[in-house]
Every structure is written in structure tokens, then in C-alpha cells.
């Protein structure tokens, strides 16, 4: 198929940037979206033009590195990661617009590549259980009901891609943050630091410049891993009960 691509080009963090149009021909519908961009980049490189920069690594939908805003949706029209999107989701003659994630806390580095280290800092604020290596109890010492373990796993599946932020009008990171808080709040291992974790992670989220929740559920609708917004409700409960009985105020 033949396509018109409108791609955001931006030389670096300080450049203003803008859309550029490219025509691309002979795209097979078996290609993944990123392979289509590979073809474009081979063509640009051969002509001596700077290839379009985008983040990607596993191309299996699990590392969370790929992050394209396609035709107004994070990761495009399907509820998958960009790397799992295939060209059969498009038609011959389509025009496709491709932008980076847009959020104050995700500054653009070049073209479609953004800086998501704010997510790392939210985890550093408390997204862990404080145990050192060694000297821990036997793994089967604390039984965990299967239903609880499964719920924790559902939350833990977050790949940290940032589609939730990109989908949100307010660029809120509630879904991301709540997924980690929920996972650890559900498990017995996470109980000891439960309150302080919720307080610190939420504080870091605000400090990074992510916005407030819009309650529209756009994040859940776009999440490639189907992380549920019930996690946000759980986080809010965790947070408020922590603040009410806080030792740190």
C-alpha cells in the first residue's frame, strides 16, 4: 500500500520542531508499524537525510520503550504497543500523523524520542519493598490467596510506556503510579511500608509536573496492558488513609 506520513521532526530539546510530510510506497500489510518506519529510514538514509528517531527495543510489546502518538492515539488505533501494531490496521492511501508523547514531564529529546526518567524517579520514591539481598524468609512461608496474587499480577503488568500520560488531557501519571502502589498494597510483603510509600510516590508524581486525574478513563482505554482504573481508586484510598494517619506531617 501507499501512504502519506506526517511526522514530527525536532532536532533536539531546544528546537521548536514541526511536522514534515513523507510519501511511502509498497508497504506490505504484514509489516509492523515500526518496520514501516524502518523502510522509511532506509530510504531517508540512502538519500542522505537524517532518519526519523524513535524509541524501541524489544518489539514484543513488553519493554515499554516504543511510544508513538499515531493519528491522535497513543500507540495508534489498537489497544497494543506501537511495536505490535501492524500495517493491516491501515488502508492504502491513508495519511498517518505521528507525534511524540506530549507531556510537561516527558520533554522531547529528538523527533519522536522523549525523556521518561520522571517515571523512574516516582519508583525511586517508594516503589519497592525495603529488603536487602539474603536473609529473607522461605518463599512459601507466607501463603497468598490466588485471587490476591492474580490481582497484584494484573497491576504489576504495567510496562511503564507512558501511554496513560499521553492519553490524558492533564498528562496525569495516576494510572502508572497507582499500578505499583496497588501491587505492593495487595501483597503481604508490601504492608510494612504501605503508608509512606503512597505518600512519597504521590508527592514525587506531583513534583515531576504530572497533572491531576480527569476521571475520564482515557488512560485505561489506551493502556496496552489493560491496567484498570480501579487501581487509581485503590491508590486514592491508600493515599488518603496514609495522609490522615501520617507520621510525617
Amino acid at each position, binding site marked *: 500500500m501507499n501512504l502519506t506520513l506526517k511526522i514530527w521532526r525536532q532536532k533536539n530539546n531546544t528546537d521548536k520542531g514541526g511536522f514534515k510530510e513523507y510519501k511511502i510506497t509498497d508497504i506490505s500489510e504484514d509489516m509492523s508499524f515500526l518496520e514501516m518506519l524502518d523502510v522509511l529510514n532506509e530510504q531517508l538514509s540512502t538519500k542522505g537525510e537524517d532518519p526519523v528517531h524513535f524509541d524501541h527495543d524489544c518489539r514484543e510489546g513488553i519493554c515499554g520503550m516504543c511510544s508513538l502518538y499515531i493519528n491522535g492515539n497513543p500507540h495508534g488505533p489498537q489497544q497494543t504497543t506501537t511495536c505490535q501494531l501492524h500495517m493491516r490496521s491501515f488502508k492504502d492511501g491513508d495519511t498517518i500523523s505521528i507525534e511524540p508523547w506530549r507531556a510537561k514531564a516527558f520533554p522531547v529529546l529528538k523527533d519522536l524520542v522523549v525523556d521518561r526518567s520522571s517515571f523512574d524517579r516516582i519508583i525511586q520514591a517508594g516503589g519497592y519493598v525495603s529488603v536487602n539481598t539474603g536473609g529473607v524468609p522461605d518463599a*512459601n512461608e507466607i*501463603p497468598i490467596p490466588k485471587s490476591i496474587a492474580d490481582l497484584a499480577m494484573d497491576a504489576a503488568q504495567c510496562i511503564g510506556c507512558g501511554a496513560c500520560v499521553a492519553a490524558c488531557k492533564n498528562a496525569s501519571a495516576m494510572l502508572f503510579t497507582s499500578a505499583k502502589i496497588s501491587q505492593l498494597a495487595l501483597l503481604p510483603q508490601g504492608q510494612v511500608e504501605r503508608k509512606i510509600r503512597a505518600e512519597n510516590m504521590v508527592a514525587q508524581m506531583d513534583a515531576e509536573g504530572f497533572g491531576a486525574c480527569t476521571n475520564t478513563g482515557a488512560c485505561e482505554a489506551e493502556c496496552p496492558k489493560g491496567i484498570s482504573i480501579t487501581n487509581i481508586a485503590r491508590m486514592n484510598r491508600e493515599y488518603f488513609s496514609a495522609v490522615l494517619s501520617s507520621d510525617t506531617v
Partner: protein
Amino acid sequence: MILDSKIPEGPLAEKWTNHKFNVKLVNPANKRKYDVIVVGTGLAGASAAASLAELGYNVKAFCFQDSPRRAHSIAAQGGINAAKNYQNDGDSVYRLFYDTIKGGDYRAREGNVYRLAQVSVNIIDQCVAQGVPFAREYGGLLANRSFGGAQVSRTFYAKGQTGQQLLLGAYSALSRQVANGKVKLYPRTEMMDVVMVDGKARGIVTRNLITGAIESHSAHAVLLCTGGYGNVFFLSTNAMGSNVTAAWRAHKKGAYFANPSFTQIHPTCIPVSGDHQSKLTLMSESLRNDGRVWVPATVETAEKLRKGLIKVNDIKEEDRDYYLERKYPSFGNLVPRDVASRNAKYVCDEGRGVNETGEAVFLDFRDAIKRDGEATIKAKYGNLFDMYQQITGDNPYQVPMMIYPAVHYTMGGLWVDYNLMTTIPGLYALGEANFSDHGANRLGASALMQGLADGYFVAPYTIGDYLAQNPNDRISTDHPEFQKAEKEVSDRLQKLLSIKGDKTVDYYHKKLGKIMWDYCGMARTAEGLTKAKAMIKELKKEFWTNVNVLGANEELNQSLEKANRVADFIELGELMVDDALSRNESCGGHFREEYQTPEGEALRDDENFAFVSAWKYLGEGLEEELNKEPLVFENVKLTQRSYK
């Protein structure tokens, strides 16, 4: 040089305990005077960095992705082995040790593998304590599944995302140490060289992938946890960025490279669909429990199928060849990975491949669906079927899946002794980057185990032993050795940028991949390897005169990143070929067609080849020197594998 593996004395089961007692310790107050560099934040790197920081060392951790959480380990699906014997089915440390040695076709060290089996049990405890949500039974205890090459159920898993959950556990431990100020993170930073002072590893030179800045970092020890090099084949199941650069630069500085040609080719991957293909996707091995592997019985039928003249479901039973069931009646579709892969290649080479490219076989669930019902099959494999349909557009409930083998894992890597130290003092290699535990073939669910064993439980002890024997004086990065290394790195990058030829980096990477796949892949011959060597030499020359790398160093430049990695892959490719050519036997993933049993199975030569090949770099353009570390088996008896 005599390769000293430093395996401790004493009975197998007591070696590690004795060793831990005998190693020197750094006293707690002194630990903060030592700096350790950890390159890589996959399972091996993240677990090592976190554990060393907990002990009190100052750690700097590097990765090329934008976050440590995205290391390639994240993609592991199936699970992690541990000799917990929670199922009471006869598992033990000794059985895990034995299965791993045998699975590796007797080309790994007994001492290392036994230790791996011993610490495997601690790994599961550690991960659960971190909040890793492993699968559980209704009673609340941990669930297990079984995996290839074992008769017990010892694999722990978290849905089909075990690697993700284990990595996020290690990443959380790492993040905690970042918050504590004991680890400084350097994401989007690529290691370009090791720096040695007075014969010891004392730091690295890196490139900041956003600004292009070339920088030096000094330390008392350097750990390479940089993963495997399967991408030398261009197409593999590895992440796009996986590379050999860190290990290769260390190799050129004096670290021996062990068994480079030992590669694992996984039988069940989604086949290549065209020239545009950028990577291959693994379909879990578990599918072979219910799927039947077949191709048309004749070349004519296969041709008609390829041309679209007939449909697969119209092919009659008697025109199908269930070749694994026919050749291996007792194991059938469940023969080990290497045997399944090789046989798929044979039937496709005969012209019986089933897709447009002629390189695919069927994995058919028709009979399983008829027998068990679609609902049962869906419950077992639903997510895999969905993933397959997402990628190929075919519905595997209605037409058979197509699969073909793909490069998946590299058993070879930097040579390390029992302490995981390379032949360069102070330079360590952990995880897939080293060669240590899997011999000539790795069993499923054992790479995750090894990465975490190295990082959580082995390196923290053995590195202390080295540091305790070395002064804690710091070396400034103004030292001439750092300056020299920085200049070499800059010069090389400038050279790549200045060639301005007319072929892209991927053009050369694809060419290299094809040579490696054709001649150093599933089946190898002396003749083919000799030819490949000449072709790679030629390719290297052409690359350095005709590659086109766009842009400048001082910016985010993905073509420069790639060019730098592909240049190293080309050199590694040549060494892999040398290694495969020098090993005149077949073992595990290394199959030399000249050495096979009358039934076509791998024929080992224990008398002449029970050794580790450790290659020493001698200089640009020179042939590398082969060193042999003999493998001594005191506890297991070497036998020939048979699956008839």
C-alpha cells in the same frame, strides 16, 4: 597463559560453602571507599548493582535504554528454575545440577553448575520478598510448571511474563539504592571501552547517547552484565539494541572470549515474512505439547501450497509428513530444542517449506482441538494464539500455525573463572555476557536463574574478595590511560562518520546475518565455515570503506549507535566461525555435519574436545589464539543423548 578456573577444592556439595568462608572480606567501614561500575541493568546487572550498594559499595550503573527497567531480560516469558522441590516430585539441588550439565551436552564446569543449583532456591525467596507476584495455587502456595529437559516440575512463573516480573523486582531493589544515594544511574549511556591501569580494570569510557559526550568513569572494579550477542545474526528473538560491544571491547583489551560459536536456535518462532523483517518473535515451547509439526510429504504439494494453488486444510492426511513423530517415535514433537530446529531446516532444505519464503513448517492444533475442544486449547494457549494472530493475521484455531527456528540465546561469552572474573583482573562478567554455566546448550528457564544467581548471590561475595586485596586509592579520569581510551573512542566514531559511503548500516548487518545464518547457524561444515570466514573478512573491508553513517557525534544519532555495534558484530562473526571450525565434533547447539551418528544426531568427541575454547585477541588483522580449559567430570558420567 594457563587458564585457572579457580574451582575450590573439596567435594562438589561443599565447594561454594568453603569458598565463601575462605574469601577475604572488606570491613563494613571500608566498603564506602570502593567504587564499582556495573554495565547493564538486566537481571544480572540490576541484581548485582543493588546487592553491592546494599553492602555499602558506591555503584555506578549504566544502560543504553532510557530506563534500567527496559533491559532485554524483560522479554523472557516462560519461567525460572529452582530446586525448591515444593512439588515433592523428587527434585533436588543435585538433580538440577545433573539436568543442567547433561542439557549442556557436557561442556560446562561441574563446580559452577552445582553452585548455580544451590543458590537457585535463594533466588525465589528473594524475589517473593520483593513482591514479585509469581503464580500461585488455590492454597496460596507457589505454583510450578515443567519445562524441556527435565522430568520434574521446578519452573516458577508469572503468567507469560516471568522475565518482566523478575526484572521489575531487581529494578525496584536498584531504585531503592538510587534513592539511598548508593547507586548513580546512567541511562542512555553506552560503554565504549574498558580502561586498564597497571594491568587491572579501573574504569570505562562511555558515550552519552543524547549529547554524544565521551566521558570517563573510574572505579576499583568493573562488571559487564551486558547480555548476549544473538543479534550478530541480524534476525533473532533478542531486543533490537542487544549487542556485543561491551564484551568485545573488553575482549580486545585482553579478556578471553569462550565458546563464541555456541548459539541456541529456538524451534518455535514466527517465520520471517519478508525482507522488511526486523526481529523474530518467540512462540512458547509449551505449544509443542499439543501442536503437531508437519510439512507436505512431497515437494510438489509444497510448491502448490506456496503458490496458493491449494489450501493447507485441503491437504489429505496421507499427504502430510509428521516428520518428528516419524523419526522420533518415543519423544515425537517434544524432542529437545536443537533436534527440533535441525529437522525443520532439513525438510525446508528439501523444498518442503510451507510459506512464501519456503522457510516454515506447520504446528497444527487441529487434532488437539478435535480431541479436547476449542475451549480447553484456548484456556491453555489463548494469549499465545492471540499474539500469533496479531502478528501474522492468521487464526491458529482455523489454520495451522507456521513456525521456523530462530536465534535465541548465546551460551558463549566472556571467559570467567569461578569468581566470575575475566582474564583481566578486576573485570567481571555476569549473566548471558559470560559463558559459564550452560555448556553447549541452555535448558529453558535457566538463563533467568543464572543471571540472578550471578548478581544477587555470587558476585557480591567474590568481588569483595578481590577488593579486599586491592588498595582503595582512587584514580582520576585525567590519568593518561583514560585520556588515551577517550581519544581512541572519539577517533573511531569520527572514522565511522567520515566514511560517507553509499550503503546503510543495516545493509551490512543484514549481509553479516545471512552469512552467519547460512554457514554458522543450525548446521555447520568445514567447507561452509571456511567460505564464511573469507566472506566476513571481505565484508569488514567493505564496511569500513563504504558504510554511510549520517549526522554528527554531538547529537542523538541512532545510525552512529548502530554502526558502532555492527562494526563489532562483524569482528565477532569471524571469531565465531573460527571457533566452530576448530571444534571438530558436534555438541548441543553446535552441529557439525561431518560429526553425526548414523541416525543424524550430534556426535560428541569427549576424548578430544571436552574443553572450553577460550580465545585471546592478539591484534588487528591477526588470527586469535585458542586456549583450552580442560573440563573435568568427577561426578557425572558422560553419555550420548538419544530421543528415538
